[in-house]
């Protein structure tokens, strides 16, 4: 990223963030900004949606339409927004707690609908905004500000879960490798259907285990020969996490009809349809 690109990028906002200096969130924000600009989109074509959390503040920091909703509820709000106007390019950007914790039910059922959106999860394996409780992805036994004796439940593996739900695009990236991250966002934007990118993101304030260094030492790029269309192989790969290495890249891809394509009668976005009270007259005849 050079300064010149930033200056000419209409998505870049000069709004101070409330993130901690050095947080992985900055690089995710920049990667989104750049990718959107590279794709030649205008801010008016893009709707940034989030829940609540540190990650979820992102829509306030980017010059586009924004929808900062409730903790855990970004996916259903996206469903309505997408149904209303599928011409908008929707990027959902939120935290691991938001998406997999409070929002877990919407996550699994959101996948089933295959909306044509990009979902970027800032996975810092911790609750940041609430100051350091374990999240669904925090490792078993890891000590936190709340779990002083260590996490008791097993962690959730979001990419394995998504593959089990036959999510149409499942990728993993790392905020510490912006080039890779941008390539994933670009691929997700190009993908027709629900594209999940779980982005490993160090939280310098509350996660002392999963640091930049910890991730850096473990992530590796998937071999170009990796077949992302084989669901079982993808599942097997998705299980890799931790000291055995963390694969980055597109783990799984299965193109199928999108949410809007599954609704046979919808062509132009709902929001453009003209309606009048008289429209119901034809229905009233059936009540004779």
């Amino acid at each position, binding site marked *: 990223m050079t300064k010149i690109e930033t200056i000419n990028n209409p998505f870049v906002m000069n709004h101070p963030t409330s993130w901690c200096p050095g947080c992985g969130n900055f690089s995710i924000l920049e990667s989104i900004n750049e990718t959107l600009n590279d794709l030649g989109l205008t801010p*008016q074509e893009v709707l940034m949606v989030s829940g609540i959390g540190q990650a979820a503040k992102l829509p306030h920091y980017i010059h586009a339409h924004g929808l900062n909703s409730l903790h855990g509820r970004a996916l*259903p*709000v996206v469903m309505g927004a997408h149904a209303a106007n599928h011409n908008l390019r929707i990027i959902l950007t939120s935290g691991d707690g938001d998406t997999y914790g409070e929002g877990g039910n919407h996550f699994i059922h959101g996948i089933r609908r295959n909306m044509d959106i990009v979902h970027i999860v800032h996975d810092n394996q911790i609750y940041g905004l609430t100051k350091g409780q374990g999240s669904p992805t925090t490792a078993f036994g890891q000590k936190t500000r709340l779990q002083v004796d260590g996490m008791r439940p097993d962690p959730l593996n979001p990419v394995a879960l998504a593959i089990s739900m036959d999510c149409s695009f499942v990728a993993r990236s790392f905020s510490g490798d912006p080039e890779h991250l941008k390539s994933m966002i670009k691929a997700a934007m190009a993908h027709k259907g629900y594209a999940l990118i779980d982005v490993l993101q160090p939280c310098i304030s509350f996660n002392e285990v999963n640091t930049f260094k910890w991730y850096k030492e473990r992530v590796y790029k998937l071999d170009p020969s990796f077949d992302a269309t084989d669901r079982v192989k993808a599942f097997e790969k998705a299980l890799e996490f931790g000291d055995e290495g963390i694969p980055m890249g597109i783990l799984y891809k299965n193109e199928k009809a999108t949410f809007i394509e599954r609704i046979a009668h919808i062509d132009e976005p709902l929001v453009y349809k003209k309606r009048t009270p008289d429209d119901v007259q034809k229905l009233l005849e059936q009540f004779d």
Partner: protein
Amino acid sequence: MKKTIMIAGAAGEGINTSELFLERMLKREGFFVLSYKNYMSRVRGGFNYATITLGTEMVNSCEDRADIIIALNQEALDKSPMMLKKEGFILASDQLKTDAVEAHKSILWIEQEPLKAVSSSKNAFSMCAIGVVLKKLGLEQEALKGMTLKKWSEEVNQTNLAAGTYGFSLLESQIKTEITHQKETILVNGNQAVALGAMASGLGFYSAYPMAPSTGIITYLAAHEREMGLIVEQAEDEIAAIMAAIGAASNGVRAMTGTSGGGFALMVEALGFAAVSEVPLVVCNVQRPGPATGLPTRTEQADLSFVVTASQGEFARIVLAPLTVEDAFYTTFRAFNLAEKYQVPVIILTDQLLADSTQTISKFKTSGLKIERYLMEEVQTHYKRYDFDQTFGGRKYPGLDDQTLVMTDSHVHDEYGNETEDEQMTIKLKHKFIRRIEGIKNELNAPIFYGSESYKTLLICWGSTFGALKDAVNALNDQGESVAMLAFSDVFPIKEDVLKVYLKENVNVINVEGNAFNQFGKILRMETGVTFTKSINKYDGRPFNASYIIEAYRK
């Protein structure tokens, strides 16, 4: 003339079909009807019944005792005498005949053997009974034509018709009732009226999670999704349902969700989100008795206090409780304009009584209705989505023009939607909500006054209690009392002086509500200071009827 027919039996024995045929035939012959379903929360078995009350004028409320009962099984037969009017009679299969009941004069036994000879229908008995009822009411045999369903085969329809015709022949011909044919009427239930009102108002998106007694709304809308160009989505839970509606509404589409108490409870956080993000949202809560799972298929008016204050913090909202099936259409239509004008959540509060009441009413008039959107048309380079000076209107959504950017936010925010913790903005937001509430109070409909102008007693009701109370007021005044009623469809917010013109010295004020806690009475006391001298309540899960009110009044 007012008569009530009851069809009683187990779930799965064809009560619904018989009711549908009968009410349709009666309506087509020019009768006004009002039918109501009284059923248990189960798929098969149990004891259920439908009542159809018919008259030559608009029927306001159902009766709890019948002139004719069609008893579909033994339990129904056993319970029938208690539910029968003095002069009424029961139709039952002769196979239920026992020594114990044989003596009962008011039972007309339908012999199964000859019936079977003319019809092989599995519903032969109920179809035959319908024939008997039609003859009894003095209709022509022609009317039996209504006894068909398109989705059934020609053969089934024929054998049903044969049973009906046989039934029609069983009685001597009866004296014909004089009825003026009602051309412009429709036969519709409360859930359908809400759905139709929403569509008339330009509904584009509806999301919900199934829950009795609100499921009828989504079922009706889904069946017409294609025809009307809607998106109707079954959500994974109620939280998703309301959030999706907010997502659609914030992007310019009129959107709604519907549910019943427990589902509404799950929507409470999102309700506050709609309020603070100023997204016009319409939520229909079809009340059933609580708490918790309560009585899933019964009726009660006990969610009012809850919906009036639901969600943390303070904001403007509107609560509308349609009085009748007809009102449900117009009130729902109005709800969307109000929501979009003031950018507030509007809650429509109906109940199982209204939802499952099918009524003959005037065909909805759409020519006088206008969809008003209160949008800001001009392009804005720095759009103040949350302008603190705007009490209503001025809304834009993404894509309304190709320049403006729109930020929708759930925090306390500045006028642009940026989150803020500033004291002054926090105060300004409150003041905006308070101004909105004042605006809304002045815009909502005043209560309907009905009854004796020289009333000594003023009965106050809200929502679906209207019909039964109206019949009770008529009856009481006929019996020499001097009573009047006030019916509120617009139940919140309430003007402090709303009752002032109706209160006179020596007038008793009684609140009539389908709950035990006098919820609306308390809200009126809170908002107007008026205290009630007496309350008439019903909270056994069953709807009010006129005779119950009259009895309670006299006590």
